[in-house]
């Protein structure tokens, strides 16, 4: 009998090893989260639940709440900003316009978090682009406080997540069957109504993917809140870094990470659950 899966073992083994690596990293986090911190030592102490009890203190609980709020706001603003770009990227009639929008919205994705955050530092700083321009125009005398504010952090975070949301929305929009729109228009629907009742619902799977990815990416962001927030706006990632690499309290940093991961999973599940009817609406249409 002929083997119908000739490469199965060769092809799956390396990937399984990589997946095992991911599992090992997560297991290490969980294991350390349950150990006591021995000050001055990298070796953890005995098993304890104290780390998780400390998480409930208002200081840490507040950071978690703040993080979720900032992630939700970033996801929502990214979606609003990304939709018109994705629409232009898929629907523009001229090829050079599509290429331009694609290159312009994708380039920042490949600059990395540090270069982009630095760019926002130059834009928002006391002597930066915004304040320098406004002062040169005589509109303000003293620089506006943009750095170390939540608004500044949000502006930069949306900028970081925007490209990936554009890509996901564009992928969703590319799958929308144009004949359905033409049918709606032939039946007398105007462009606005066609968009709201045909195009938008059909692009909802892309919307859901974009929202959830933006949420997860923002949760993962570190350089942006660290540099633009300057200690005034802290996300979970900043806490993990300062506890893990500055104070060498690996167990508590691990507990924060584990809680952060659980929170991401929970938030994504809730978000997914809340959005599922929407996505189904999009998919149900033929």
């Amino acid at each position, binding site marked *: 009998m002929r083997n119908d899966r000739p490469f199965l073992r060769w092809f799956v083994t390396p990937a399984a090893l990589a997946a095992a690596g991911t599992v090992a*990293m997560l297991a290490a986090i969980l294991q350390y989260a349950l150990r006591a911190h021995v000050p001055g030592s990298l070796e953890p102490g005995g098993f304890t639940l104290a780390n998780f009890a400390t998480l409930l203190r208002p200081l840490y609980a507040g950071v978690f709440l703040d993080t979720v709020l900032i992630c939700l706001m970033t996801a929502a603003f990214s979606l609003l900003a990304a939709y018109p770009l994705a629409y232009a990227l898929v629907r523009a009639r001229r090829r050079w316009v599509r290429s331009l929008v694609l290159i312009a919205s994708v380039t920042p994705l490949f600059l990395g978090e540090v270069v982009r955050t630095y760019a926002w530092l130059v834009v928002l700083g006391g002597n930066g682009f915004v304040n320098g321009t406004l002062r040169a125009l005589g509109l303000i005398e003293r620089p506006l406080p943009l750095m170390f504010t939540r608004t500044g952090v949000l502006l930069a975070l949306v900028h970081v997540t925007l490209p990936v949301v554009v890509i996901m929305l564009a992928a969703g929009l590319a799958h929308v069957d144009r004949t359905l729109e033409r049918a709606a228009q032939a039946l007398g629907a105007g462009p606005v109504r066609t968009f709201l009742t045909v195009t938008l619902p059909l692009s909802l799977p892309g919307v859901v993917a974009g929202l959830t990815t933006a949420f997860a990416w923002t949760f993962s962001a570190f*350089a942006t809140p660290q540099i633009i927030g300057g200690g005034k706006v802290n996300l979970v990632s900043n806490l993990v870094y300062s506890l893990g690499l500055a104070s060498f309290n690996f167990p508590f940093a691990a507990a924060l990470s584990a809680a952060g991961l659980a929170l991401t999973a929970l938030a994504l599940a809730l978000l997914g659950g809340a959005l599922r009817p929407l996505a189904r609406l999009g998919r149900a249409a033929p």
Partner: protein
Amino acid sequence: MSASAGAAGARRRRRDAAGTLRRWGGRLLVLALLAYVLVPVLVACVAAFDTRAVTAFPPRDLTLRWFAQALAYEDFRAGAANGAIVSLAASTLALAIGAAAAYAIDRYRFPGRRFLEALLAAPLIVPHFVLGLGALILVASAGLPRGFALVIAVHVVLVLPFVIRSVHISLRNADRRLEDAAMALGARPWRVLWTVTLPSLAPGLAGGWLFAAVLSFNEFTASLFVTSQRTQTLPVAMYNYVREYADPSMAALSALYILATAALLILADRLIGLGRVLGTEHAEGGHAGG
């Protein structure tokens, strides 16, 4: 009769006016959003030419000295070299692992298939600082050094989902009938894979590899945890620089970075069609099922 024709004409004119307004409104909106995306990047480039030692705007006198300083700075040079090693190794490994996995997941049914797929995609959702800290704890508790192998391994895990996605899109667009034909003509499985399947996946493989290399070169958060002074990659070196100094050397480096990235993407768009690799455009003639 002529009155009703006039009314219809007026209605059509009104509709045309609304359409024009909407089109221009849409264009303006897209332009404004593109400005939001591009202005910070351009501002950093302009700031690189300012003579003053503290980054400020607008520039007064222009100089190229920050470019010279950035290119001469030891940590940046070492970071770029380390980053090149890491991203080349990680993206090549990820390409081999990811392409094989995408093929197996797409073409075969085997126990644990969904689970494997989910685990491989997990780094998209698991925050990078969690994976970085986990990897750091792993090597610390095993008594292993924080060398290149660790950085490369972490980067492979982080970029795998992107390679898999890219190859997966190509696999779905590939014409299976060509493989069946080769098979029916008596070609052995390896030969079919090598002479029919692989060439048809070329855009996905090239795109996935490029993606992985660029993402790995830019990866910051996990790298901050797993690199040491010796293996520090460029983003980590840049971050440390920004925390300590305020001069425009970093702006100069950013400008070079932006130039190189934009050139790379334009080239990639010409060669392999970025839209097709990203799934924002259908390949013509393929079987792109929804």
